[in-house]
């Protein structure tokens, strides 16, 4: 029974709760039992809020009993990335510097989930401050990829993706600054969406790089992601960069998947050196399938994309060097050296020394340097120009195509430890995802097969223009349906039993 419940999609679970076939408490208990059973091996969660989850589930059941209307995801459990503040529940952002901090307020995303009666099971592991592509930069230890626990689950949102892929939750929330939703989705055979910048409120989402960060839905199916997208998206007066336009009709699009007559772009610059053969093969098959489904495939060139990674590694560290300045031991979080023998300045320095991991320090130093007087124009200034050029490349591309497709990440999941001492190799994992953040567009990753050489999942990235998030779901749903028909089952069912 438990096994059946945890393998349901979010849409199915919600329907069963609404009809009375299952109670929210039963569903929640099944997932808490699953976490109990497998998370010691996976380490997807940093904090499980058993009591909070059950209380929320009981409230949903009471609501139903009282005949009150339930939202489309009422009673469905969710794993929340530990970057969103949760009132009364620890929020660490994967960092020692926030160990033990209990936020006094809920992020807008957290609040919207609660208002929609979604059951938050707990907080998921991540690269410290969302800086990384493997979740190895978490101060609380790595997360294993459910396909092979010795391999990375992607990052920074490896915990959320691993929770989905190991059936510990049917829904999860991630954040994507350079690929942190999409790359974990790709290497775990799950679905992850980075909405248009400004589509989902950043209020209460601990900032890494403000102009790039975007929260988004993670799920095992395109429809589930759409249902979750609709719950968390929409204008928020607490976030000045939140767009004040109606949420694109993502659920309707996910229910009406189709690519007939659609123009699909393939970008020349995404391919070649550094791309694993099996990834390229599965990607090419996907393009072929899109053509068979009635899409017109157009090859495009986006020459500025060559500079995306370089621009990103100036902009993101610059913003983070400023965003992370507040962690000074004065008001919250870790405090080191406060024994009466050190000045306030020294306590701040000792705390940051002890509280931040090497990747965070690397980026803070890099960003501080890039913003320094005399270097600003050459580094931050040039990077902003590249950013403009990348946006223009996208604009030009979207004049001739409706969506763009690419591999989500150049390789399948690599072994834990393989790239920790080689930051440049690590950064390459986000080669195809970063341009989207720089331009503020919407993108999705969904499974497109296993690489023949290692039997690990490959992700297909779909990119849509800003505010056209619904196109991701229309195309994604059609691709997903075609693949499931081809394979006879969702890809994730091929993952080994834990």
């Amino acid at each position, binding site marked *: 029974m438990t096994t059946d419940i945890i393998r349901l999609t979010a849409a199915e679970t919600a329907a069963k709760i609404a009809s009375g076939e299952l109670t929210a408490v039963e569903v929640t208990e099944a997932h808490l039992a699953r976490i109990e059973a497998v998370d010691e091996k996976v380490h997807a969660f940093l904090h499980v809020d058993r009591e909070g989850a059950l209380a929320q589930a009981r409230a949903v059941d009471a609501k139903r009993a009282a005949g009150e209307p339930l939202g489309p995801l009422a009673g469905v459990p969710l794993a929340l990335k530990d970057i*969103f*503040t949760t009132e009364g529940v620890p*929020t660490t*952002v994967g960092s020692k510097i*926030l160990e033990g*901090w209990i*936020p*006094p*307020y809920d*992020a807008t995303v957290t609040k919207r989930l609660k208002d929609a009666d979604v059951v938050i099971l707990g907080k998921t592991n991540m690269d410290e401050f969302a800086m990384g592509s493997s979740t190895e930069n978490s101060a609380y230890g790595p997360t294993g990829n459910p396909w092979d626990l010795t391999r990375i689950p992607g990052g920074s949102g490896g915990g959320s993706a691993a929770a989905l892929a190991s059936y510990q939750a049917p829904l999860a929330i991630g954040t994507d600054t350079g690929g942190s939703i999409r790359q974990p989705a790709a290497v775990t055979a799950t679905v992850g969406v980075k909405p248009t910048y400004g589509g989902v409120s*950043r*209020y*209460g*989402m*601990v*900032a890494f*790089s*403000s*102009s790039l960060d975007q929260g988004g839905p993670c799920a095992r199916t395109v429809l589930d992601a759409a249902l979750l997208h609709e719950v968390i998206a929409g204008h928020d*007066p*607490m*976030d*000045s*960069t939140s767009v004040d336009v109606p949420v694109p009709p993502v659920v309707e699009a996910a229910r009406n998947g189709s690519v007939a007559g659609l123009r699909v772009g393939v970008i020349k610059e995404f391919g070649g050196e550094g791309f694993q053969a099996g990834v390229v093969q599965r990607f090419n098959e996907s393009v072929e399938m899109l053509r068979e489904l009635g899409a017109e495939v157009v090859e495009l060139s986006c020459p500025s994309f060559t500079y995306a990674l370089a621009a990103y590694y100036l902009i993101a560290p*610059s*913003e983070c*060097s*400023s965003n992370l*300045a*507040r*962690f*000074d031991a*004065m*008001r*919250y979080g870790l405090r080191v050296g406060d024994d009466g023998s050190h000045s*306030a*300045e020294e306590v*701040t320095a000792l705390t940051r020394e002890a509280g931040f991991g090497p990747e965070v320090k690397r980026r803070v130093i890099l960003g*501080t340097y890039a*913003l*320094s*007087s005399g270097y*600003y124009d050459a580094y*931050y200034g040039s990077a902003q120009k590249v950013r403009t050029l990348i946006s223009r490349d996208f604009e030009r591309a979207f004049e001739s195509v409706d969506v763009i497709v690419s591999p989500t990440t150049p390789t399948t999941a690599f072994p834990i430890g393989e790239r920790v001492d080689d930051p440049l190799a690590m950064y390459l994992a986000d080669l195809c995802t970063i341009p989207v953040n720089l331009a503020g567009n919407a993108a999705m990753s969904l499974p497109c097969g296993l690489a023949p050489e290692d039997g690990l999942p490959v992700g297909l990235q779909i990119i849509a223009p800003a505010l056209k998030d619904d196109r991701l779901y229309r195309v994604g749903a059609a691709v997903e349906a075609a693949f499931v028909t081809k394979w006879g089952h969702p890809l994730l069912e091929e993952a080994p039993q834990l």
Partner: protein
Amino acid sequence: MTVTDLLPYEDALATYDPVMGLEVHVELGTRTKMFCGCSTELGAAPNSQTCPTCLGLPGSLPVVNATGVESAIKIGLALNCEIAEWCRFARKNYFYPDMPKNFQTSQYDEPIAFNGYLDVQLEDGEVFRVQIERAHMEEDTGKSTHVGGATGRIHGATYSLLDYNRAGIPLIEIVTKPIEGAGDRAPEVARAYVAELRELIKALGVSEARMEMGQMRCDVNLSLRPRGEQKFGTRSETKNVNSLRSVERAARYEIQRHAAVLSTGGTIVQETRHFHEEDGSTTSGRIKEEAEDYRYFPEPDLVPVAPPRDWVEELRSGLPELPRLRRERLKTDWGISDHEMQSVLNAGALDLIVATIDAGADGAAARKWWMGELARHANESGVELPAVPITPVQVARVSALVAAGDLNDKLARQVIEGVLAGEGDPDQVVDRRGLKVVSDDSALGAAVDQAIADNAAIAEKIRGGNLAAAGALIGAVMKLTRGQADAKRVRELVLEKLGVQG
């Protein structure tokens, strides 16, 4: 402590030409903070007016206060500035415990207002034009209280207390272009500029601009160059000079100090200096070996501010009459001299007099009370004139009672005294103290008879036609009625009773 050498002021100015730059921070009087909804009310318990945003908690985000932007534009327009069509906030990065995010949300190379001027009038009526570089929006920091040190500064303190109620209160920083050509009047120009700016801010209604409350704070940058030289000398930056008098004194002190250093072949170090109210001196703060690197960059959490032109024009057309022009108009209306007007301004009586006139008093009476009796009272009790416990409406009422003949001057002063003593409104004081002028004949008749009886010799002189002697009898009646008699009527009665024609 080393003794600082000063050159006599006249000697300094004989050789050197001062150049000043004034930076004034004004705390706006908005109801809420610049980037969150917390109250800006002063005097609340420490840290009671805070939220995730102004505490800089992880995940929090700023939202711009529209009234703050409106106030900034009004200030810019009143300072004859251009208003940016599009501008951004920027982060000024530096670590300090009273700054919750360790960056200040400010503006850098895209201020909301720029390229303006303010005409200021000196004591002798000369008008000096101060060029304005820019006015930009930013947020205030929290407040540190350093406990245990000798100086009240962080150095040497055993611990520090932090109050973030002030963190995020909107500030407008107004920066002048280098003020040149003021010569020996530089300190006076500095004072007049800050005074005029304060009047302007108050007239705009965007802040009470009370310097003693820290709502307006001034930094005085000053350098000297040899007379005839074009190139600026090295400047010192005297921080937090927080009264008009101090602004003048700080400028004067720095001129004398720089001159002493330069005239003995020394060089001025670029540094910040602290001003000391007690003796008007400045002392060295931290030395700026190189310009501090604030690593400014556009604030990515806020969208650009692009005030529509029609809104800016609407604000422009709604600007109040500028203080200097208003003063000119009032001076003409009242028919007073420059000197008298200056006294009114120095006493801080202008708005009180205007309000008293608005409440029905005539101009001369309003000026007389505020510049006389009430100014004296303020002086004696050591408070500013506006803090004297009487309102313009009450003063106007006293004035009306005098005009109607219900009070004479002496009684009116007693009424004022009663109001100041907290005995109530003028009419209540009149009733309670029984101060009404007695002009009714039956009441006065007895007193006149008594006075004639008591002063038979004088009465005889009057009967004999010596009308000048009537004053003595009137005085006697006034004494008998404790000053409440209507002197004019008493005179009539005295003459009538003695059978003499007045």
